[in-house]
């Protein structure tokens, strides 16, 4: 069990800085998800914690011990890789046991630990098989098993579910979550999938171009995004951004009003100043997504209850929302709070 701290962590390749100083204190047993689009530096951040990338400046501390120059194997971590990185010529058992063998753990202890992990992950029938004889989900479990048997202080997951199909992804997501809860091991989890981030995280780090735009609990991040990027990245369909000027507000040049699709109501045109034409509607059953083109040319999406009448294409509707649900962002993308 361990705490992890990142202090002003930076990474450069040559003269190009790709991580611009990340700070976070992770509590013992906490599940942290690092989320962001590809190329935002989230994997690099994780690999710095793992010790697979050198730290350019700043510090990584595990249990209050600076580990910048400590080899990965001595950091008391375990890692689950995106492509699983299973040793193709070794059986499932040997894959899980390899790290323990190197650490010279006694054979019966190795067997005990691998068997326990196999039981947890329902891998018992497959212990003698080679990775290529397993399905994607089973391989994923072996990769998890390899991490579990080492009883590490910290789990690191690098997009572990991205090679699975959608259904399996949901199932494995739940398994990872319950496993982490049962074991209570501090975890860092990298993903580009915001649903994974929302569902798994105790707290999440939203990365944007090498900067941690926001760190917080998933629902806090959702309801109170710190930047335009976070508001746009977290939530699907994404937040609508409307030019403040066009709405007749005078905040600052280039300011935008962000409003979540579920916060907009469609009303008769007469009740509001803002109106748009319905481009198309997507009835999803429980809810309906209505895509509109506002009269001044901006796009907006509205999410409404599936029981409400579905507006026809070409119909003109009024748009209305509570002022409290508005989020104001300045020209640089940062939140302006009144």
């Amino acid at each position: 069990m361990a705490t992890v701290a990142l202090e002003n962590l930076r990474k450069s390749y040559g003269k190009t800085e790709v991580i611009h100083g990340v700070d976070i204190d992770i509590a013992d047993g906490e599940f942290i998800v690092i989320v962001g689009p590809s190329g935002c530096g989230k994997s690099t951040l994780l690999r710095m914690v793992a010790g697979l990338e050198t730290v350019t400046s700043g510090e990584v501390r595990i249990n209050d011990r600076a580990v910048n120059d400590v080899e990965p194997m001595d950091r008391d971590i375990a890692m689950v890789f995106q492509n699983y990185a299973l040793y193709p010529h070794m059986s499932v058992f040997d894959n899980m046991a390899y790290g323990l063998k190197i650490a010279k753990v006694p054979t019966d202890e190795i067997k005990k630990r691998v068997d326990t992990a196999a039981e947890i992950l329902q891998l018992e029938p497959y212990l003698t098989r080679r990775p290529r004889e397993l399905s994607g989900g089973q391989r994923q479990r072996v990769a998890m098993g390899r991490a579990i048997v080492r009883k590490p202080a910290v789990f690191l997951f690098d997009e572990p579910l991205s090679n699975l199909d959608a259904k399996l992804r949901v199932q494995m997501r739940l398994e990872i979550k319950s496993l982490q809860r049962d074991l209570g091991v501090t975890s860092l989890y990298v993903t580009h999938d915001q649903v994974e981030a929302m569902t798994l995280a105790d707290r999440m780090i939203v990365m944007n171009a090498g900067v941690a735009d926001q760190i917080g609990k998933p629902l806090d991040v959702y309801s109170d995004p710190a930047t335009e990027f976070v508001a746009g990245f977290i939530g699907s369909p994404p937040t609508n951004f409307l030019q403040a000027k066009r709405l007749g507000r005078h905040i600052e040049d280039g300011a935008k009003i962000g409003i979540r699709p579920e916060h907009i109501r469609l009303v008769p045109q007469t009740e509001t100043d803002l109106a748009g034409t319905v481009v198309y509607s997507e009835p999803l059953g429980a809810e309906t997504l209505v895509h509109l083109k506002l009269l001044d040319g901006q796009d907006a999406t509205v999410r409404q209850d599936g029981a409400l009448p579905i507006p026809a294409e070409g119909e003109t509707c009024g748009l209305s929302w509570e002022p409290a649900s508005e989020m104001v962002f300045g020209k640089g993308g940062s939140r302006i709070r009144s």
Partner: protein
Amino acid sequence: MAGQGGMVQKRGSGLWLTHLGLIVGVAFIFFPIWLAFVASTVDQQAIVRPPMPLLPGDKLIENYTRALTSGVNAPVATMLFNSAVMALGISLGKIAISLLSAFAIVYFRFPGRTLFFWLIFLTLMLPVEVRIVPTYEVIANFGMLNSYSGLILPLIASATATFLFRQFFMTVPDELAEAARVDGAGPMRFFFDILLPMSRTNIAALFVILFIYGWNQYLWPLLITTDPEMNTIVMGIKQMFPSGDDTADWPVIMATSILAMVPPVLVVIGMQKLFVRGLVESEK
């Protein structure tokens, strides 16, 4: 309805013509070997009074026993052993040093890495035939004439195997090395536990090619083995021909030729898949 592998399917007479063409080709390939085999089963009289028979005689055991135990200058069994040592030495030696250097070049950054890479690259395809005189002098100065090390070492200095392994190592996912690091494996541990077992097929395929290469060497053993006891079989055959006008001992010579072919042919047929793969990959 579709033809196989490129041509539109042939039927009837066309098909038979195709087979006929191939059988003629196979016959052309086989005939010299068949003739050698027949010659190795008859006595000298049957050969020196042409035309020699085209079907095997009854002297097979006698001729092969004579070749293996006494030969002409040295027993062929000795030459077979020498060839085996040379072929195994060259193939295993090349594989060993190439694995190590390819591992270093791919998985480390060290001073001189690029230089070494190019030094090795320069040796690519430059056959020993081109530098025989000075190489001979080197071997002579080391006192390695008529020795196995003299037969083997100069032929190990080549880059093909290094390049093949380098190519293969490049295709090994980076994550495997990272997982090994997280598992606590140092570089050599990774090399022996992960990389080497993963390279098994490549090693085997290369072994087939290099074994044949080593077995079939001619010029080099011709130069440095003056002692008949050190002759390899491939070069030893020519030494069996008498100088001057004496009649050659054809049955023994042909038995020796057949014996010289058997080991590499067995390797090719037994490991056909690996052989084809090794050939195609080592030329890539």
